[in-house]
């Protein structure tokens, strides 16, 4: 007769880069139930909106997350701009799209590396992060920051990219695609990776939808849902198709992210071709009043920025619903019934970003 025991997992754990705590109820080697708890890195960033004027708050909105920082800043700007009826120049929207897709590339490469590390495949981890440097170099050369870009502002963008640099970036991505293909080949075809990921952490299509999964977790369960289909920024003018997999397991989630990187490269190349000339920002006057929900697709899934203005330079409320918090209930469902040794892989497969999630 086996006995139930509770094993604490996290917030500090060798394979877990993020501070989430799970109480795993174990019977033999099987996880019966997982009880998540967060609250280790709360910083109170949303309250700061009352202390900083809305144009300066972009810097704080960007620092909600250290990986998908640009998209947080851009979504906040999008929310405030809609609230104030600001017409953002077309070129600024294209530049935002290009930087957003670069952010997605670097976030997915970071995740692939961490995932490989979680599986115990150290070489692959280093290879993924080596490739990521190419993306970070391009980001630094165009915005001035490797990870926190700081190039988005209410009413447009702060920096322009000249045509020669855009061409260089676009050509650089051709070579990058070849190297990426070698990396993705290992993730998707290597026998040891496949046997570690196939049929692990299965989340059915119904569960994914009913529990509110977003982003690659939802798309890996066969639901074609992607906030980029809304056509915000310049996505409406680009040919975008969401990447969907039917596998429902960790392998499918890995495959969605791997294939999304190719989609990002295509989007960047198309945006570079179509980018119009013109101004990159408009002067924003007035004070925001009213409320608005802005939605955007982050590497981890759909993010919602809610802003409420009260007719002053300070917003009354800013609320962010990050993708990780909605992916926790599906993760708990995936963990129920899995092997103890598969827990790190399953937790990492939702791409947890607890810093983002707690703010």
């Amino acid at each position, binding site marked *: 007769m086996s006995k139930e025991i509770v094993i604490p997992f996290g917030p500090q754990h060798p394979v877990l880069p993020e501070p989430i705590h799970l109480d795993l109820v174990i019977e033999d080697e099987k996880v019966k139930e997982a009880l998540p708890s967060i609250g280790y890195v709360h910083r109170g960033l949303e309250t700061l909106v009352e202390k*900083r*004027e809305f144009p*300066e*708050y972009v*810097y*704080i909105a960007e*620092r909600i997350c250290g990986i998908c920082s640009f998209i947080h800043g851009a979504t906040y700007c999008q929310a405030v701009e809609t609230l104030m009826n600001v017409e953002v120049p077309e070129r600024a929207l294209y530049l935002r799209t290009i930087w957003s897709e670069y952010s997605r590339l670097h976030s997915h490469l970071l995740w692939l590396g961490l995932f490989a590390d979680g599986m115990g495949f150290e*070489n*692959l981890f280093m*290879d993924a992060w*080596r490739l990521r*440097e190419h993306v970070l*170099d391009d980001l*630094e*050369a165009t*915005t*001035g*920051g490797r990870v*926190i870009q*700081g190039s988005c502002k209410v009413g447009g963008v*702060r*920096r322009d990219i000249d045509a020669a640099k855009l061409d260089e970036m676009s050509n650089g991505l051709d070579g990058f695609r070849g190297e990426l293909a*070698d*990396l993705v*080949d*290992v993730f998707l*075809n*290597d*026998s040891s990776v*496949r046997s570690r990921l196939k049929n692990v952490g299965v989340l059915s299509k119904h569960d994914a939808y009913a529990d509110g999964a977003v982003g690659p977790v939802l798309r890996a369960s066969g639901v074609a849902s992607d906030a980029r289909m809304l056509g915000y920024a310049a996505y409406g003018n680009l040919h975008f198709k969401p990447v969907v997999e039917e596998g429902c397991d960790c392998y499918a989630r890995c495959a969605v992210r791997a294939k999304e990187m190719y989609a990002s490269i295509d989007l960047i190349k198309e945006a570079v071709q179509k980018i119009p000339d013109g101004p990159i920002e408009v002067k924003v006057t007035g004070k925001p009043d009213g409320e608005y929900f802005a939605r955007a697709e982050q590497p981890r899934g759909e993010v919602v920025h809610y802003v409420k203005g009260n007719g002053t330079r300070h917003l009354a409320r800013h609320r962010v619903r990050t993708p990780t918090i909605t992916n926790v209930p599906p993760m708990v469902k995936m963990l129920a019934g899995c092997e103890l040794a598969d827990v790190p892989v399953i937790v990492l497969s939702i791409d947890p970003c607890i810093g983002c999630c707690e703010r």
Partner: protein
Amino acid sequence: MAYFEMAKTVLKSVLHGPSTIRYPAQPAKITPISRGRVVIDPSQCISCGMCMRKCPADAICVSREEKTWEIDRLRCHVCNCCVEVCPVHCLTMETQYSPAVTVREGRELVKITYVKPERPAKPDAGEKEQAGSS
């Protein structure tokens, strides 16, 4: 089921050599617009305090009475906000990062040496009329 998927990468890595650079013997990669640290030209600063008011991290403290400009390097998150709002462009962004510091060393105090230029003496009423007629 495929095997030896890593073989190509392994061979490439063997022939290519290390992807990292030997920092600090070799300089780190820096672009002309990299945000490293904020520096001030104390001979230009008019102590208006815009940088202090706009700083999202409350890292800058300007004292008009004591004529000082202070930055806490550990609070500053190098967002470039102060450089953008400075009306006299006395703040600039250097591409080199600030060196590692302790809490006490991180507070950098700069004495402002700006001297307000004297206003040119008001021209006499008679001269003004002359200038107007000519």
